[in-house]
């Protein structure tokens, strides 16, 4: 949000005109806020409360929900499936966020002030405008054990065919790779905008100091970008906690041995595939707590690692 230069609030001396319609002003305020506020109440807050209530019940969708206290949470917190889902989801986040952002910064730096940038940007941005379903269908074929990638690797490296999506050790890595690939373009755009705000004089000064491109990258560019890196990592981390579409289409039934089961897949599976709506709600509350915890941790880390100019 670097571009939005926030102006200080004006002095409080109210102009005389304001008084004349102050009485009706409050109503205007509520009117303006109303559509979003009503939507928030109706489509988020009420379902949110209902999710909390459901989490303490047993309900298969037929008849009335039955109150069972903390049983669902007990069930889920000891469930190897939920554990698996949380670990998988965290692995996706921990692998895709740093690697994805790092690669994006590299490309953005390389693209900074280069001829033919629009052309290159189109190449990198193409996956961003492609729906996840289409991406999954394409990669599903490419990653087949008898597919192009496996064949290419076995011919160049002399290794046997690899069943990327069928091997429990590899399926999650394949999901990560596709995620990095598909989100690259958006991250590059953000960092390129950030780089444009870095004044060229800073880089020149570093060059005069005798810093090579590598040390310039790590000592100057990365720290200067750190506020954006922080913001992007929060956003990317939270959105990778919500990974669903890709694994749902790319890998059948959450993969071999549930190798690619994510938390949202777990919520969908319990609720919409197994009709265990109470347990599903409990799992979604756990997702919420996890999201809050991780965001809090990231903001705590921000104090240590992020350098704000001035």
């Amino acid at each position, binding site marked *: 949000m670097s571009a939005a230069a926030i102006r200080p609030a004006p002095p409080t001396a109210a102009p005389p005109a304001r008084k004349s319609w102050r009485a009706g002003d409050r109503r205007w305020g509520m009117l303006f806020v109303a559509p979003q506020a009503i939507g928030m109440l109706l489509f988020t807050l009420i379902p949110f409360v209902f999710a909390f209530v459901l989490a303490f019940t047993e309900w*298969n*969708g*037929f008849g009335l929900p039955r109150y069972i206290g903390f049983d669902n949470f007990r069930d889920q917190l000891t469930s190897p499936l939920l554990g698996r889902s949380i670990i998988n989801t965290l692995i996706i986040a921990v692998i895709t966020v740093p690697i994805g952002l790092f690669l994006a910064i590299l490309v953005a730096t390389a693209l900074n002030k280069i001829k033919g940038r629009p052309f290159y940007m189109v190449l990198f941005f193409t996956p961003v405008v492609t729906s996840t379903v289409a991406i999954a269908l394409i990669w*599903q*074929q490419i990653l*087949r*054990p*008898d*597919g192009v990638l496996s064949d290419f690797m076995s011919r160049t490296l002399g290794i046997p065919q690899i*069943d990327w*999506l*069928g091997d429990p050790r590899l399926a999650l890595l394949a999901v990560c790779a596709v995620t990095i690939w598909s989100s690259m373009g958006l991250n590059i755009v953000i960092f390129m905008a950030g780089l444009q705000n870095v004044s060229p004089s800073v880089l020149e000064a570093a060059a005069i100091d005798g810093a090579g491109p590598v040390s310039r990258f790590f000592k100057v560019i990365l720290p200067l970008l750190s506020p954006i890196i922080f913001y992007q990592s929060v956003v990317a981390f939270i959105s990778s906690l919500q990974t669903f579409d890709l694994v749902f289409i790319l890998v059948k*039934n959450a993969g071999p041995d549930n190798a690619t089961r994510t938390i949202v897949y777990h919520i969908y599976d319990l*609720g*919409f*595939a*197994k*009709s265990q709506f109470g347990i599903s709600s409990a799992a979604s509350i756990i997702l919420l707590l996890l999201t809050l915890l991780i965001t809090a941790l990231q903001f705590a880390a921000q104090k240590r690692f992020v350098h704000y100019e001035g």
Partner: protein
Amino acid sequence: MAITISRRQFGFFAGAAVAASSLAACSGSGSGSGKGKVVWSTWGSPEDLKSFDTFQEAFKKSNPDIDLVFQPTPSYSEYHSKLLTQLSSGTAPDVFYIGDDRVASVIRNNVLMPIGDKLSGTSISEGDFAANVLDIGRWEGKLYALPNDVNPDTLWYDKEALKAAGITDDPAQLAADDKWTTEVFFEMTAKLKAAGLTGAVYWNYWATHDGFMTAQGGKVYDDQGKYVAHQDQASVTAMEEYAQRFQSGEMKLADLLPEGAGSDTLLVTHKLGFLAAGRYTIGSIRGAGVDEALYDIVRWPSIDGTAKPTGVAASYLAVNAKTADTDAALKFFSSFLDADGQKLRLSGAGNAVPSIKGADDIVLSENYPAHAQTMLDMRDIGYSNFATEAAVPDLSNQISVELMQPLYEGKSDAKTTLEAVAKLVEEKTA
């Protein structure tokens, strides 16, 4: 320059929003609303669903007053997830398919219309249907669902693959002579494996395990609906012997084959000897453009070489208890299931075998595969999924994935596995 939205454009958007939200409001086709409307649903790939075109056209023509809406879902498991959610939220279609591993559990939720006493005056009656697949459509003396059609898992075999493995006997001929023994079959799968091919491929579901056991003279459930396979020596031995073949790689589970080398692909590229599958395989063979005369079917082998009962996969049709227009729904229900309806749906390279009397000639009239009669024979002596198992949602699937699969993968032995199944069944049905 960046995209900017002018005020005029904004006004246009706002106008469009109002205009089009009325459009959106009309486009909703809430189920069961309005007279003379039938919403129906099933699963199937776009290709499979084409077999319903002829029937739907004919139905619309003879029932111009009924508005027919079709809501298909491609995958079997996703379809049932959706159906259950729809039933619980009161948004389910008027008439819908249910798989044989789910039907009994859906019936027990009191969301289906009892149809037994409503059939008089329609084109079908209970007695028209093959009795051995009717059982799980009943609950507490009432009938809730009828079989659309059935699919006995015949063994499709590839003569070219058998020849490549040096097998000279024709399985169908052996079966005709009652010499189609398990021993001969296992010899064939071993030879196929030795020739670098896959011996046999099965789908990991109830009819596979249960068929292994009953074809070898074993029992799975007793007459009271109690799981007894673990106490039946014939069943345990059968599972042990088959599991060995899976572990050695002679046999494989279709579910675990990698994308792109699936069971159909193996069959049409002559890399597979036997595939346990239904009549829909005709479509796969013809679609691939291979010489279809190379393929034929045979029943499952038994110890003494004679025909033994095996599982018959079936799908069921039911009517929503909350349907708005019972007459229209029943009209569709009976037209779909009667002999004429089944002929319309299943003729040509249809994907299943009729469940009703008087439509069998559609299986035979094609003269393909050469021993098409085998499908009818297997249907007549076979059995549908056991009601005990089908009464618990997902139980059949859980047995297959969590218990039987480890057995086939060599992570457990037959006795332990069947005991675990017995325990699970007891837990879930308690």
